[in-house]
């Protein structure tokens, strides 16, 4: 029986359990609700929970573990002489899986009968043509060893599925029966359901934390891996970035990329922070209710535009416009449309709604009594904003700015389209440069080997970015804490 059918059966069981548990609880007190420990629905949920959750957990674990176990034992069928290393075995095993899959399909489509499929012989049947007929294309003729392994895989999968069905159904029914037997007036169903919910929440939180941990660990290990192939000093302090260096001389210095990242982000923040902040002050302190009503959503629409659209905007409009002023015909500072300025300006525009809507929320959270106090002393509106409202909102605003900085550092599309791909250490803001993120993309989109330094360097770059944004976030937290101590 397939997993989806099992799931449907379990759901039905849970539904049935809910009704049964509820009714049984009610019946046990003759319909008098006050004698029950919990509300009747809790007894129902308790039964449904015990019938469904353990069985589904078993189903999930089995579904993950079964292919691994079967793969391991099927690969044992392939003789050692048949392959040189792990990589070759992996290729053979993927063939095995395709053959097994193809045979299943052939049986399902009626091309082969179930018994025919088990006694195939590579000498007498053209398996490649047969499987091609059911839509499974193979790269080469099927070797007898591969067929044997595939057959073993099919047999094991079939029995595995049967055992799984049996165990899952047993778990579901077992939980169901235990829960129904437990159901009586004194059962603390409410507390049981409560702890079930607690476990669910803990589970969700640990998945979030564990995946983050996993990502960080994989970053760290691959970075270490990279540093074993490439000297860390050259990476951290190298001033040239040219991965395809001639004659084996390879330069993977991060400094030009880091400089590009910081320069472009800085331009973006110089654009976004004042404009965003002033917009927020206008919207929350000066604008009438109606103005605010349409201006705020309008600003937030900017935040919904995909960054690739901003990239297009940078490439086709902002770049040429800058060139017409600063290019060869004008001041002569700019060579092409792609430059730090192009990307920085557009990225700044992208960040405006981010800064303004966060700051607006924070400014609005400053209590009205604070403003009243200032007005009551004869302060004007701008004095009140500058000396009372903004200082009170400062920690939040700093947090918003640092968040915007994190986004600027992580931005890729606008950089690729607006700033180009040239890794360069230059002070001229009209020169083309590139950033860490853009280089991560270009290092991994070629057809380079994933074990080479040119590919592994992406992890080191990712690690650098991660440390950079982590540092910014820690700084934001520190600033917020410091001011909070002072102000609350």
């Amino acid at each position, binding site marked *: 029986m397939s997993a989806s059918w099992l799931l449907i059966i379990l759901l039905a069981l849970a539904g049935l359990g809910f009704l049964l548990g509820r009714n049984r609880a009610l019946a046990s007190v003759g319909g008098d609700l006050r004698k029950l420990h919990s509300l009747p629905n809790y007894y129902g949920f308790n039964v449904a929970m015990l019938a469904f959750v353990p069985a589904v957990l078993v189903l999930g674990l089995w579904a993950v573990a079964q292919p691994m176990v079967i793969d391991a034992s099927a690969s044992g069928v392939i003789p050692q002489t048949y392959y040189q290393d792990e990589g070759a075995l992996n290729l053979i095993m993927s063939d095995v899986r395709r053959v097994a899959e193809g045979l299943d399909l052939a049986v399902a489509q009626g091309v082969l009968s179930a018994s025919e499929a088990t006694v195939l012989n590579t000498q007498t049947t053209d398996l490649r043509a047969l499987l091609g007929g059911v839509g499974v294309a193979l790269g080469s003729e099927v070797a007898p060893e591969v067929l044997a392994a595939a057959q073993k895989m099919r047999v094991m999968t079939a029995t595995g599925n049967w055992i799984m069905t049996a165990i899952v159904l047993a778990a579901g029914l077992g939980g169901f029966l235990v829960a129904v037997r437990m159901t009586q007036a004194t059962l603390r169903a409410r507390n049981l359901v409560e702890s079930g919910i607690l476990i669910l929440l803990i589970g969700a939180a640990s998945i979030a934390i564990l995946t983050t941990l996993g990502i960080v660990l994989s970053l760290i290990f691959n970075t270490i891996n990279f540093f074993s192939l490439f000297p860390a000093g050259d990476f951290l302090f190298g001033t040239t970035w040219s991965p395809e260096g001639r004659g084996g001389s390879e330069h993977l210095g991060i400094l030009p990329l880091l400089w590009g990242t910081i320069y472009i982000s800085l331009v973006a923040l110089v654009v976004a922070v004042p404009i965003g902040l002033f917009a927020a002050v206008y919207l929350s302190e000066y604008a009438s209710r109606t103005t605010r009503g349409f201006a705020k959503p309008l600003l937030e629409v900017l935040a919904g535009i995909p960054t690739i659209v901003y990239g297009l905007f940078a490439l086709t409009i902002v770049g040429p416009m800058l060139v017409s002023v600063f290019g060869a015909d004008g001041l002569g500072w700019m060579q092409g449309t792609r430059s730090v300025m192009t990307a920085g300006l557009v990225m700044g525009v992208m960040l405006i709604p981010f800064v303004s809507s966060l700051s607006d929320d924070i400014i609005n959270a400053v209590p009205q009594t604070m403003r009243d106090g200032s007005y009551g*002393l004869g302060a004007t509106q701008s004095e009140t904003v500058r000396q009372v409202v903004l200082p*009170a909102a400062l920690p939040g605003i700093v947090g918003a700015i640092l968040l915007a900085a994190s986004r600027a550092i992580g931005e890729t599309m606008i950089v690729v389209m607006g700033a180009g791909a040239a890794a360069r250490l230059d002070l001229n803001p009209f020169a083309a440069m590139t950033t860490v993120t853009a280089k991560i993309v270009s290092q991994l989109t070629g057809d380079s080997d994933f074990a080479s330094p040119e590919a592994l360097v992406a992890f080191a770059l990712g690690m650098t970015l991660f440390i950079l944004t982590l540092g910014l976030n820690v700084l934001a937290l520190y600033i917020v804490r410091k001011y909070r101590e002072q102000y609350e």
Partner: protein
Amino acid sequence: MTQMSKIERAATMHDIKISAKDVQVYYGENHAIKDVNVEIEDKTVTAFIGPSGCGKSTFLRCLNRMNDTIDICRIKGDILLDGEDIYDKRVDPVQLRAKVGMVFQKPNPFPKSIYDNVAYGPRIHGLARNKAELDEIVEKSLRRGAIWDEVKDRLDAPGTGLSGGQQQRLCIARAVATEPEVLLMDEPCSALDPIATAQVEELIDELRQNFSVVIVTHSMQQAARVSQKTAFFHLGNLVEFGETSQIFTNPVDPRTESYITGRIG
């Protein structure tokens, strides 16, 4: 009749500082102040009393246009300060509020140091020529607010870190630091212990030498102690206004009598 003649006699004693004529206040549909006529004298303490929600704070906030900050609030009628309509288009509410200071019902210190809280008004209005003068103003104001001894060693500590009663006195000090001509105090002693209350009442008495003070209070004893004039509000109406001694000993309106004897409220 007797009440009217008393007001007239008082008026000859001191100039009229603020005069309100037929004031109506609406919060949206809610008619919060109805037909209020009152004359507040210079160098006099006027007490506003009345049950909760009767509109004392609302009327007080009209006197320095603090109601401008509330969108839904509409005001009709005339309020004259020294004979000039404060709701006139030519009047700058900012300057008005520098002249008519206010202590709010809920203490609202700024998230700044105690010193900066008090120095806020003088700095905005340029009342001090140098740091020494500013220090002097701050110390004097904190002394008048009866809080100097408690905070003199921690002027750099945040004002929001003080206790509720200390915050209230800090707000009083902040308001007197700008030397307003009229000081509006909305329940300034609601969170104070008897000692601090006595000190604030002393301050009010001192302020009376030069300024006019309007105080909202729920304490009949306080109104009787500090004020020369008392106004009794009920459901948005000014029920009775006159000499404090007369209101407390011989009220004209039966509603005033039941309120001060504790039967309504």
